[in-house]
């Protein structure tokens, strides 16, 4: 076998293989069980232990790239929150083209199903430029930070929820932040959670999940969901498997494929090296 040639295989063949391996379980689901991690369980219990009727601040700080990982978290969170008759204030500080619409769509889907009304039980304040300054303003006065309007430009004083929830400092009980970078959990921790001693939880894209484990360990994050896997676990705990769980089988086969690539690539590397050494001698 020409290991050298195998090392320089046309890259498009690898792309086709990974696509096929991801597609097979989508057509033929395997239904593998998903173990729940401690971090996810901590997120669920933090929210479950809130008194009914609490106010949860949800910030869907995601871009379009990572949205498929984080959207199921918002849906599951809305379900758990509305089941406890909690109020939701939503924002999206990372990206204006995606965040406000996604957070609206995913919360609204659950709200309509559970009979919750926009402006009464939840509201979407959308995206604001300069997240740091906006967070600091909203700590004392939410309407000032949001310029007195919601994400569509409607005046806030016409919504009953904003008569009850005036500031993060006095009226918000928990922060749930889905994050892919900055602005994200680190800004919420810095400007809101630590100064006000508010519990901060949420979820992160797996691209940054390993980099925030030390905050979970120190207790600064009350658990955190990790990507699509975390979303799937959270959906199971909430009792409503959805898009998170649906993607897990494809993930499994995808991971196995990459591990096979790693093994084959290294076998090829060492075999080619040995072949070259033998040819030299």
């Amino acid at each position, binding site marked *: 076998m020409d290991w050298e040639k195998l090392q320089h295989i046309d890259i498009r063949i690898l792309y086709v293989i990974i696509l096929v391996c991801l597609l097979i379980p989508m057509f033929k689901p395997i239904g593998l069980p998903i*173990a729940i991690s401690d971090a996810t369980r901590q997120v669920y219990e933090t929210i479950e232990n809130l008194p009914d009727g609490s106010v949860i601040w949800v910030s869907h700080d995601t871009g379009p790239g990572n949205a498929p990982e984080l959207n199921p978290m918002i849906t599951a969170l809305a379900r758990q929150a509305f089941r406890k008759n909690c109020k939701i204030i939503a924002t999206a500080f990372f990206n204006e083209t995606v965040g406000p619409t996604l957070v609206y769509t995913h919360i609204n889907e659950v709200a309509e199903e559970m009979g919750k009304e926009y402006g009464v039980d939840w509201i979407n304040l959308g995206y604001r430029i300069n997240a740091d300054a906006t967070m600091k303003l909203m700590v004392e006065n939410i309407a*000032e930070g949001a310029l007195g309007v919601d994400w569509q430009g409607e005046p806030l004083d016409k919504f009953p929820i904003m008569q009850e929830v005036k500031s993060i400092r006095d009226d918000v009980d928990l922060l749930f932040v889905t994050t892919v970078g900055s602005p994200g959990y680190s800004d919420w921790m810095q400007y809101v959670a630590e100064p006000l001693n508010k519990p901060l939880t949420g979820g992160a894209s797996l691209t940054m999940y390993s980099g925030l484990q030390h905050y979970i360990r120190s207790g600064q994050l009350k658990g955190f969901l990790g990507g699509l896997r975390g979303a799937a676990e959270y959906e199971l705990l909430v009792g409503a498997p959805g898009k998170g769980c649906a993607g897990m089988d494809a993930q*499994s086969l995808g991971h196995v494929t990459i591990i096979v690539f790693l093994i084959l690539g290294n076998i090829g590397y060492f075999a080619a090296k040995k072949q070259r050494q033998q040819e030299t001698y």
Partner: protein
Amino acid sequence: MKKQLPLIVVAVTAIIVMAVKFIDLGDFGAATIKELDTWSQVTYEFAFLLGAINLTRLHYGNVSKKRPKWVYSVIALIAMVAAAIITLVNGVKGDVTVFVVENIANRIDSAVYALLGFYVCSAAYRSFKLKNVEATLLLGAAVLLMLAQAPIGDAIFPGISKVGEWILSVPNSAGMRGIRLGAGIGAYAASIRVILGLERSWTGS
């Protein structure tokens, strides 16, 4: 004065922000920081055309000088103007706006980002070789975690998800904390250098 004024602005702004935080100035302090936060928002709001102007200059230059692929620059400019008009006329949540943003821009953006997944796969085959102890440790941890994170890991090796959790919460967390502690000190040093005017690369000098 042209070189000193921006540095003075940096120092004065930073000192005001820190003074209000560390010194209890009562209502005056609260009002000052609120005003400064609002000023910060307003400056960003009024600077919103910066990206659009840069884009226009770049693509207009391509079109006027008929550089290669100038046709795409025309498309970019038309798309920018059209999207702005559609949003202003139809509103942020208007049907046409949502259709254009959700089904074109966001889809392309997420698809381009997803390309990285394919590159990870090709890197797994071509680039990650067990050449030394460090590479072995890196790949070993990566393989363990990949198996632990996917449900198939527990199906093949029962309990591997707990191993993955341990790797994340002990060695990974400790390593990241060490990095964060060091980087944090570095960030404070960099901030102090900027405030004192010792860091001037951003002024172009």
